């Protein structure tokens, strides 16, 4: 439990370094630039130089700001995101699992929504109209997009019959205690519980989940305030949105939470849809690829292997988020609301019905 706490803290801190560097390099690649090149080989030390600069900066509080709220808001944002990591199983077995609470994913959705209060506090206490605008937009967006996000999580929960993320993970591969059948349907008679790999992932057990993942992905982008849903911090209109007035360490904390949130929703997507910490390779005859690449749960090797697969898949999702950010233009407010209420929400309700039918077929 405490190992998981330390690993998660380390993960968030490393993530912001890796995330910012790769984001700058990827955006540069997509726009046919070079990106950071000056500090260190390939600009590898650029992010450390930036961090050093941020740490040295003065912590400015505007004169007319609500001082207490202004100072505490970034901490609340960070705590809300960090608390979300508590229920994420980082690998098979028990070493890297924080909380074993039955409530799992529901707790995660609940605690992450506290993020909104931090955003509102930051925006309001700055006593700056751009900050307030940013906070208002952020809250309107996050509250609306929580609905398709919650509904898409609900579909997965209906299929796996559990809220516990470790339980949902274990079901999607060779360590599952119940049998796994092709497409999840028992009457097809093709038992794949020993095959594992990609054939037992949720996205394969319930083939429509690929389309559901697209909904989940869009909603999760909006939850992280990432482009094309970054109207809360739209630089061209609002200076910097809710964090306009922040500087130095507190600004870094807000940034840390933003990148932490990206990683958190990527983890969640991987765990719910893409086989969690299982490797993608199936057992084929005597070539026991799944057995070799997964190891045994509760051993050091198995834990490390699971951790590696989860991280690898999660960073693939993070890459996808960056790709989307540097490809699509920002949405207008009315387009944003149109997308969530008239497209994503009805579609995810449809998926809830479909998942219910599929669950009946699975028994």
């Amino acid at each position, binding site marked *: 439990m405490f190992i998981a706490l330390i690993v998660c803290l380390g993960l968030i801190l490393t993530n912001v370094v890796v995330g910012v560097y790769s984001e700058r390099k990827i955006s540069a690649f997509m726009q046919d630039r070079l990106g950071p090149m000056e500090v260190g080989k390939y600009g590898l030390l650029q992010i450390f130089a930036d961090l050093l600069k941020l740490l040295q900066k003065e912590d400015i509080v505007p004169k007319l700001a*609500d001082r207490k*709220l202004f100072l505490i808001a970034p901490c609340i944002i960070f705590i809300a995101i960090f608390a979300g990591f508590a229920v994420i199983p980082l690998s098979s077995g028990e070493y890297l699992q924080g909380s074993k*609470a*039955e*409530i799992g994913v*529901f*707790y995660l*959705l*609940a*605690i992450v*929504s*506290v993020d*909104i*209060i931090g955003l*509102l*506090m930051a925006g*309001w206490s700055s006593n700056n109209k751009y900050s*307030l605008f940013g*906070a*208002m937009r952020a*809250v309107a967006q996050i*509250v609306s997009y929580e609905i398709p996000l919650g509904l898409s999580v609900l579909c997965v929960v209906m299929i796996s019959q559990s*809220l516990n993320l470790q339980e949902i993970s274990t079901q999607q591969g060779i360590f599952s205690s119940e049998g796994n059948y092709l497409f999840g349907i028992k009457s097809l008679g093709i038992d794949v519980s020993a095959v594992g790999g990609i054939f037992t992932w949720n996205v394969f057990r319930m083939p429509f989940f690929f389309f559901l993942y697209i909904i989940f992905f869009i909603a999760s982008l909006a939850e992280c305030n990432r482009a094309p849903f970054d109207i809360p911090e739209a630089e061209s209109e609002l200076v910097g949105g809710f964090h306009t007035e922040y500087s130095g360490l507190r600004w870094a904390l807000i940034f840390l939470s933003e990148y932490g949130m990206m990683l958190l929703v990527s983890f969640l997507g991987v765990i719910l849809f893409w086989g969690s910490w299982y490797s993608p390779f199936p057992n084929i005859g005597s070539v026991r690829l799944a057995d070799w690449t997964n190891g045994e749960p509760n051993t050091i090797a198995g834990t490390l292997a699971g951790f590696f697969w989860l991280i690898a898949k999660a960073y693939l999702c993070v890459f996808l988020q960056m790709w989307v950010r540097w490809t699509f233009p920002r949405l207008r407010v*009315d387009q944003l609301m149109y997308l969530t209420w008239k497209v994503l929400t009805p579609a995810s309700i449809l998926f809830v019905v479909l998942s219910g039918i599929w669950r009946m077929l699975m028994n």
Partner: protein
Amino acid sequence: MQFWYFLTALTLLSALMVVLSKNPIHSVLYLVFTFFCISGHYVLLNAQFLMAVNIIVYAGAIMVLFLFVIMMLDLRRNMPDSKSNLTKLAGAILGGTLLVILVAVMRKTQFPQFSQMGGKFDTQTGMVENLGQVLFRDYLLPFELVSILFFVAMVGAVMLGKREAGERNF
């Protein structure tokens, strides 16, 4: 047990601060904190589902709406004129009556002793699974009626927010 005392003291303190703080925004934030403390009590009672629901509904949604509305108001210009002695008196009477009722109810209630329950109790009562069993078996009709109520409220909200014919979109 010690943790319970600490949490209870924290809950009462933050609840008091809701009433005592001058700034409405601070009041709402203290209220959010109070809800978190109450969620902590739910965790101690092993009612995990209620804990998450309490956070997601109250702290995450309703309180955010409160904050939203209060932030929209210009507090310096729209100072609430509810500071007259009459309203203070009315508030005191209302609160006092509620307190008397609650104390009377608590005094009348018979709390079952551990020994009266046959020396055993189910720690899993508050879990999602058991709650679902109870809701969908014993209380199915009320549950469905509540869902219809919510549906009607939702339709009403959509009707209110609907664009009138000829009105501009933006």
